[in-house]
């Protein structure tokens, strides 16, 4: 049948099972929005306050559901406002499809009103992008975009749609989504055998798990594999939840703000098995000292990650789920590493996740929050101290329920992402743990929370400063608090209320359980402003350039 380009886009979205899109209209996407209007019963469009919020919402939707998140923006400033959101999704391998309008083909390249070369701009921050210049290519471009977003290592894909491509007509034939198999084309029998051999010869094997395990829905396979190998595991920020935080085998986060046990174990082990992780500098710190007593097996779906930051002695390229299943079969009989596991248990006793006085209150708030939340709640964060506290003190049990901007470190990520997570999971609770510095960046999305009456709870840790930067200024810049104090008389409660969102205050004297419970019980959007001391710090930490086991602020137990 003959349809307009805009209708073809909608039909292709339906082919992919898209039910929710996030966006903001404008001149160059008018035809697309007209088609959305006509199809409002099958595709729900969520109007955000700003295109960046739409991009983060699509990202949060994708991370929390495993489906592709979709965002729409108009040409020019609409498109450029997506950039931070797309870069965030790119760094954390999140499948997002962004649709942007552009001026008609005849006006392209003439610096027309609201024209911008968004494919040029987003080339380094998308897995791939397109500008459609022939309407006959439109349907397959959308299909391919979804395929690329999901296939292998996921990532964002952008399609730029000149206005005449939305208006023009073309023959449309429905198609099923192109099937995606877990990627294993580069999986080699020899490397699997080598990995098994290394595992068999190791006496102190240690796992370092990353977000790849979450993306490939392989957490259960990973947990089984840990049992089979009888070894402990540390996680990168993105890998939290892959192993249950309450598991005996879990040593905590690894790297700059990781646990002493994780960092020591990685430095002392004789075999490090890295699963779906990429040796980020926040994990590795001083690369020459990283895992210096160990051989490294690197398992990842992306061949370009192999030997990029750290050279491994064995690498297995393929979907981690497939790889772990194949390795399990080859290993067969469970391994035993009793001595090593005993050592880990001793270290865990000696270096418990305990707090210094400088993070007592945030820890109390986060621990209490966990108590009053159901187990399957989604925790979203912004970026900074509160993010690290949420990573350290929350017990991450369910894979994929901790949404945070790990790679790009995007302040302002949380509110948009929690909107996406809540739309993707209407029956689950979503909490955004925020800091005052991050939250003010995109607090305009309170308007979206209010408009759709989403029961998102924003736990706003207010220390009246940019805490993480201040922490570094305290430790490394002679307490020169250059532009990090946010001492404006901002009333967060009034701000929330102005947007039509509830505001609650948790002062230093209040019981967090009472206030947080009351906030959750509202079943409506609410900002809970939590006062925390200005000089609270994230500990332990690895000083820049130091080996990871050299940590500041470690608390030892008296054993």
């Amino acid at each position, binding site marked *: 049948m003959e349809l307009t380009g805009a209708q073809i886009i909608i039909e292709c979205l339906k082919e992919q099972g898209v039910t929710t899109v996030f966006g903001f209209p404008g001149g160059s996407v008018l035809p697309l929005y007209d088609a959305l209007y006509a199809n409002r019963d099958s595709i729900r469009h969520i109007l955000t306050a700003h295109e960046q919020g739409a991009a983060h919402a699509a990202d949060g939707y994708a991370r929390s559901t495993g489906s592709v998140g979709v965002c729409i923006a108009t040409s020019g400033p609409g498109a450029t406002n997506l950039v931070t959101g797309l870069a965030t999704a790119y760094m954390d391998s999140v499948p997002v499809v962004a649709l942007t309008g552009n001026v008609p083909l005849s006006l392209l390249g003439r610096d027309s009103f609201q024209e911008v070369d968004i494919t040029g701009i987003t080339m380094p921050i998308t897995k*791939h992008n397109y500008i459609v210049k022939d309407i006959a290519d439109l349907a397959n471009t959308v299909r391919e975009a979804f395929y690329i977003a999901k296939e292998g290592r996921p990532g964002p894909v952008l399609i730029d749609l000149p206005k005449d491509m939305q208006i023009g007509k073309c023959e449309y034939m429905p198609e099923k989504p192109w099937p995606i198999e877990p990627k294993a084309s580069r999986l080699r029998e020899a490397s699997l055998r080598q990995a098994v051999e290394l595992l068999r010869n190791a006496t102190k094997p240690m796992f370092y798990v990353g977000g790849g395990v979450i993306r490939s829905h392989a957490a259960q396979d990973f947990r089984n594999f840990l049992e089979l190998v009888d070894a402990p595991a540390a996680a990168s920020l993105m890998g939290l939840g892959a192993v249950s935080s309450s598991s005996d085998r879990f040593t905590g986060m690894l790297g700059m703000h990781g646990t002493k046990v994780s960092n020591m174990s990685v430095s002392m082990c004789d075999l490090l098995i890295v699963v779906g992780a990429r040796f980020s500098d926040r994990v590795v710190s001083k690369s020459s000292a990283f895992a210096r007593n160990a051989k490294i097996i690197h398992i990842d779906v992306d*061949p*370009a990650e192999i030997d990029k930051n750290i050279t491994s002695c064995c690498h297995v*390229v393929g979907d981690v789920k497939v790889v772990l299943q194949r390795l399990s079969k080859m290993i067969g009989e469970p391994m035993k590493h009793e001595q090593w596991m005993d050592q880990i248990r001793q270290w865990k006793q000696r270096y418990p996740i305990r707090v210094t006085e400088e993070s007592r209150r945030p820890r109390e708030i986060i621990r209490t929050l966990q108590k009053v939340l159901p187990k399957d709640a989604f925790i979203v964060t912004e970026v900074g101290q509160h993010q690290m506290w949420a990573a350290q003190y929350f017990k991450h049990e369910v894979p994929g329920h901790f949404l945070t901007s790990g790679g790009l470190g995007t302040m302002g990520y949380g509110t948009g992402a929690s909107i996406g997570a809540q739309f993707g999971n209407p029956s689950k609770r979503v909490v955004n743990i925020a800091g005052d510095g991050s939250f003010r960046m995109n607090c305009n999305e309170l308007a979206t929370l209010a408009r759709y009456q989403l029961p998102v709870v924003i736990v706003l840790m207010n220390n009246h400063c940019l805490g993480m930067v201040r922490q570094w200024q305290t430790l490394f810049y002679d307490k020169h608090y250059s532009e990090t104090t946010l001492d404006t008389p901002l009333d967060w409660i009034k701000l929330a209320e102005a947007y039509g969102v509830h505001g609650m205050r948790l002062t230093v004297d209040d019981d967090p359980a009472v206030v947080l419970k009351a906030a959750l019980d509202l079943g409506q959007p609410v900002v809970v402003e939590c006062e925390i001391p200005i000089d609270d710090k994230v500990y332990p930490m690895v000083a820049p350039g130091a080996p990871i086991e050299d940590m500041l602020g470690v608390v030892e137990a008296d054993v």
Partner: protein
Amino acid sequence: MAEKQYTLAILVNNHSGVLMRVVGLFSRRGYNIDSLSVGITENPSISRITIVVTGDRAVVEQIKKQVEKLVDVIKVYEMTRHGSVQRELVLVKVRTTEQTRTSVVELAEIFKAKVLDVTPSTISLQLTGGLDKIGSFLELMNPYGIVEMSRTGITALERGSRSLCDIDYEDPGAVGERADQ
């Protein structure tokens, strides 16, 4: 590891903007391009980019893998010094006088350079060859004074009878990947 020059042949979809994707990737990951040439192939839907890059082995492996990830890249193949023929064409305008013209032409003949144009004060030459040959020739021309020069960048073909299109992309041996070797 020692830095060396490596020549990569990259087959890409012949779309607009593909060259920018490849070149942009080199610049943002900090890989320096020494030479670049691009043109269509026997298959009009495929273009071939030849890039010479300096780096150590690990850097070149990383470059190859990053380039392979681009959706529009069909194949990346490393052209070794002995396993391939590598040529560049250079057009050079050399300053001459009545006295020096003969010696410039003699040198050109030794290098099998072609005389394209002669004026009372200059001579324009065309030379084809590998980087070494072109380098030595230009060194010899330098004292006379090079007025202007234009180079095409290295282009390369593998020796032997097969075509790059025949090489199994996923076979690590064929793409020169260190994997499993």
